[in-house]
């Protein structure tokens, strides 16, 4: 069975990109669950850890890049929280799941395709 993947996406930066992706007739596999956040900066370390606890083997956070975050520092905050969650998994020796952050420019379909290809 394919690994369960949870993607938290920024409803501004990456929502648009996913939308474009559908125009390319690329559809998401059934093992991928997509959740919108008004800004990835709202994510907490606990949300990431709970996703792992609930059986997601990959948890991705898709925010914007440094300069195009709609809420200025939301993506940077998300990145820091992902780093903290990764550190916690390492500290407790939990290697059955991974958590990662990707910064995408709105509309960057190629990068999104690359990310989806790695999961």
């Amino acid at each position, binding site marked *: 069975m394919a690994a369960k993947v949870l993607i938290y996406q920024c409803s501004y930066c990456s929502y648009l990109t996913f939308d474009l992706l559908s125009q390319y007739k690329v559809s998401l596999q059934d093992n991928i669950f997509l959740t919108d956040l008004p800004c990835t900066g709202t994510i907490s370390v*606990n949300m990431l*850890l709970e996703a792992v606890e609930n059986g997601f083997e990959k948890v991705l956070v898709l925010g914007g890049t440094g300069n195009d975050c709609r809420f200025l520092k939301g993506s940077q905050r998300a990145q820091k929280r992902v780093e903290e969650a990764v550190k*916690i998994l390492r500290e407790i020796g939990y290697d059955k799941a991974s958590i990662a952050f990707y910064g995408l420019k709105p509309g960057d379909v190629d990068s999104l395709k690359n990310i989806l290809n790695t999961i």
Partner: protein
Amino acid sequence: MIVAERKPIEEIIKMVEKHESILVLGCGGCVTVCLAGGEKEAEQLATTLRLYFQKENKPFKTITTTITRQCDPEYVKSVAEEVAKVDAVLSTACGVGVQFMAENYPGKWVYPALNTKFAGANLELGVWGERCGLCGECILHLTGGVCPVIRCSKSLLNGPCGGSQNGKCEVSSEIDCAWQLIYDRLKSLNSLDLILKIQPPKDWSKARDGGPRKVVKEEVRL
């Protein structure tokens, strides 16, 4: 506020591993403000522990709740039901909260999830600095509002020592020399005469040296 930080997770795991159910009890006071043991941190710690024991295939349940303060009896008593349901309590309060919970729940282990560091202030986002040594007899009116007891590495009351260099303490270039700060501050207040007054030895019996202290406010006692 009291400033604390979470203990290393291995240390916490060792404390709780003999139990199958714990209450992770957050505190809504100082440790919420210093991002060490409020609701968010208590929940994160509970999830971290559940994940660890899930990986170890060991049964482990958590209840998580946060009370307004763990240093006031009315709040501490309000979690009696939750405490009764678990083997032990992991408190994310400062050392005061941990002890107060233990005093109120004899027969139940109450473990400290944090290392309580100091009485300090929020210097910038994510940075806290020590400001008061809780000496029991404040002398900030003599030093322009800079505490020599805790901010001078040697707690000198008649400083500076010979190690003060370019405004920094000889203990570390990261530490401002408290006596330089006192000098600058008194100068800006036109009160440099104060620095020339010799301070007599401090009465440390008012501090920790006199044993554990108590404050009694008769007018509110019934």
